[in-house]
């Protein structure tokens, strides 16, 4: 298969450019966030800020409880977009603003981040802009969350 002009090198999305329309919704997926996920993310990312694992410290600096790493939430948005596109190499641009905290209580449920998407714009070179909505409870935890995805 020959890559189209502007195609990301390596990896081809399974979603076809000609089959998506502006305004098309990508159904929401719920991602659980428990304390153990934050501990694992701290280790894998190297971000050991205690507000992400130590309740005593989080409360001492004025937070309601332990909060998720913003980058953990952003990574869930990355999962959402790469699972939709079908190939992680199809994501050529991905940016977010962290608009509110994901508070993660120390219980069996933890928190949930619910992510959905919408095709915002079709670009040249078989690329699309996907805008993500990420909510935890009633709060929007990401704003200006968008990805440019190289489709087939």
């Amino acid at each position, binding site marked *: 298969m020959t890559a189209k002009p502007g195609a*990301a090198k*390596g990896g081809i999305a399974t979603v076809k450019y000609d089959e998506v329309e502006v305004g098309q919704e990508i159904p929401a997926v719920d991602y659980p966030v428990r304390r153990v996920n934050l501990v694992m993310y701290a280790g894998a990312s190297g971000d050991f800020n205690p507000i992400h694992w130590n309740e005593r410290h989080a409360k001492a600096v004025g937070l309601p409880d332990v909060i998720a790493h*913003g980058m953990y939430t952003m*990574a869930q948005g990355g999962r959402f977009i790469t699972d939709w596109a079908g*190939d992680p190499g199809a994501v050529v641009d991905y*940016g977010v603003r*962290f608009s509110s905290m994901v508070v993660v209580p120390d219980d069996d449920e933890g928190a949930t981040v619910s992510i959905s998407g919408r095709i915002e714009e079709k670009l040249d070179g078989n690329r699309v802009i996907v805008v993500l909505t990420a909510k935890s409870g009633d709060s929007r935890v990401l704003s*200006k969350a968008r990805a440019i995805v190289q489709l087939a």
Partner: protein
Amino acid sequence: MALNREFVGRAYEASAPYEVSRVKIAEFATAIGDQNPIYHREDAAVAAGHPDVVAPPTFPIVFSMSAAGEAFGDPDLGLDFAMVVHAEQRFEYERPIYAGDRLHCTTTITEIRSVGRNEFLTLRSDVSTGEGELVCRAYNTIVERGGAA
């Protein structure tokens, strides 16, 4: 304390290239709960058209901030790291990052601005191969709460 605007434009180079390994990609993917085989198995990645396992889109956060640590720790900048929160993050890819890449990272302070009582500092990290091929750029904005008060 207001941040020192003289730091805008300063660039910091990581002391050594970052070697991307299959093990680290798999660890990072597991930590974000992503079992996509393209992150975990070379054969799955190759079958999908990649030369090796691919790093998830947010993976560069693992290494792209290390050079900036030098700036953040410089007392002349005036940053109180205890008050820092992540405000914005963006990754712009020329190509995916693969296991086996040796990546050089240079981080530049591109902007410092006040919004209300807060100080915003933006960094751009240019990630390239030893041959000078640009692989990705990471843009990171942090906010120091109360810094401009």
